[in-house]
């Protein structure tokens, strides 16, 4: 009996509390349902005809000297790494979209530039056709070149991403995806032209034709690209440099390619199992004329520890046609200043502060360029006999 009285209140308490919880649960569930249907109505009103996305980067980089790796010297400022982009995606029909991306860069006084502007159409589930202004699909990260947030590093490896400064073209492409059992094969063909002022040259590509093939099983990725074009390259930075020394170059002196055949080949490889991320690219640039033909490669490895991903990169670039540049632009300025050779070593860390915001710290050491300073500040390297440079970068990347 005593035992019963001891147990009864306990039993009551046990049986009663779920009952109360049950009715509260019911009320909450009903309210939840009502809220959900209201939310649903709201959703159907906006119904995603127009979407806006954006990305933002800012940061600071400083080099130990004037070598000018990625144009960073001991005087670089915050604005140089800052950019803000806004992208609008407009559904034209069920199968067609218009996409426009505006990018403003601190290094260009925030003057907005249209980087993407194209119409896309999907006639079938597997085929996508696009026409307009798009990114040159030369590299694995070409498409999201400036979207720092989508990249593991503070900057794409300069050895591979540096030699081709043109980043976009106007034309059309077709992408066909074959969904296999546990993998997907993507074939892309593109054609168009380019006319772009980059940081060291004014380039023009005519009759650009190329193709990419990529395969992924969601763990491994393999990509190949080949492209050919008639290229004209005006070395504008060289001309400016000569001017700053009071040298007036005769017309045509700085034209380092003039409608010459240019070929680009690239092989890419990626592995990402969620913990380890390994990326490697090997590229070759061949242009008739004085423009430097370069071979380059990098391999990068990173490991995720929760929100923190340390990485290390080793890169290399070397011009293969130094014997074609034996002359001089003008007396005292040998063509050999376009010869390129460099080894790059980076260690860095990416910290995902919150979803959509990542902070990156990077230390890059580049060396071996004292004889072939192409792509760097040649005069500083040669005059000061610089044979290595250290670059420290702190960068904040965001996508929204």
């Amino acid at each position, binding site marked *: 009996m005593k035992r019963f009285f001891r147990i009864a209140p306990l039993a009551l308490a046990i049986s009663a509390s779920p009952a109360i919880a049950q009715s509260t649960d019911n009320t909450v569930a009903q309210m939840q349902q009502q809220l*959900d249907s209201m939310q649903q109505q709201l959703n159907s009103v906006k119904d995603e005809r127009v979407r806006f996305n954006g990305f933002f980067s800012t940061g600071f980089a400083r080099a130990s000297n004037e070598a000018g790796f990625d144009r960073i010297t001991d005087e670089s400022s915050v604005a140089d790494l800052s950019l803000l982009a806004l992208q609008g*995606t407009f559904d034209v029909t069920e199968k067609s979209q218009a996409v426009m991306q505006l990018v403003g860069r601190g290094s260009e006084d925030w003057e907005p530039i249209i980087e993407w502007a194209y119409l896309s159409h999907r006639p079938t589930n597997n085929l996508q056709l696009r026409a307009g202004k798009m990114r040159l699909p030369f590299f694995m990260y070409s498409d999201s070149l400036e979207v720092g947030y989508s990249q593991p590093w503070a900057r794409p490896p300069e050895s591979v991403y540096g030699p081709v400064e043109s980043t976009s073209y106007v034309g059309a492409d077709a992408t066909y995806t074959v969904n296999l059992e546990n993998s997907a094969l993507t074939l892309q063909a593109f054609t168009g032209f380019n006319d772009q002022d980059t940081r060291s040259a004014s380039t023009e590509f005519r009759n650009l034709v190329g193709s990419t093939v990529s395969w992924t099983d969601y763990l491994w990725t393999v990509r190949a690209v080949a492209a050919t074009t008639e290229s004209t390259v005006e070395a504008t930075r060289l001309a400016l440099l000569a001017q700053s020394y009071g040298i007036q170059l005769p017309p045509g002196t700085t034209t380092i390619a003039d409608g010459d055949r240019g070929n680009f080949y690239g092989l890419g490889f990626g592995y990402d199992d969620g913990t380890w991320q390994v990326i490697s690219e090997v590229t070759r640039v061949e242009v008739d004329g004085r423009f430097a033909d370069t071979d380059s490669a990098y391999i990068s490895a990173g490991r995720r520890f929760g929100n923190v991903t340390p990485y290390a990169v080793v890169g290399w670039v070397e011009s293969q046609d130094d014997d074609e540049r034996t002359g001089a632009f003008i007396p005292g300025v040998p063509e050999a200043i376009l010869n390129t050779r460099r080894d790059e070593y980076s260690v860095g860390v990416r910290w995902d502060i919150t979803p959509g915001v990542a902070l990156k710290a990077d230390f890059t050491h580049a060396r071996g360029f004292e004889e072939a300073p192409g792509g760097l500040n040649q005069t500083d390297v040669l005059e000061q006999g610089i044979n290595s440079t250290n670059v420290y970068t702190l960068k904040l990347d965001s996508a929204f």
Partner: protein
Amino acid sequence: MKKYSLILLASMLVSPLALAEVVVIGHPGGPDSITTNQVRDIYLNRSQQLPDGQKVRPFELPEGAPARSEFHDKVTGRNDAQLKSFWSQQVFTGRGQPPQEQGNPGSMKASVASTPGSIGYLDASEVDDSVKVILTP
């Protein structure tokens, strides 16, 4: 004996969690079944279609939802960090938009129930007959 019944009680309390299983759900007007590969292709932006040819509208639960991690663990094999970076790449290359996020399982169910061509996923215990279970990955 009392000890055993306590163990039984404890296991009954625990089992709903242990047995939690994510299922792929679809709009009642959609196809009756779908394969894991087809679902993965949809959630990794490689396909815009349901097996019956309808344009698909996938829905996603927010990061941190247990059903979300289980779904991606079983179907796409990607974690939240990989998905975030993957979609930022897709969005800014104009290849597509991530599945629309629903704040909670109730909202996921309501959206799938009311959007033709939609698919989503829920813990099996959350499913009722307003939606159709089309795959248990």
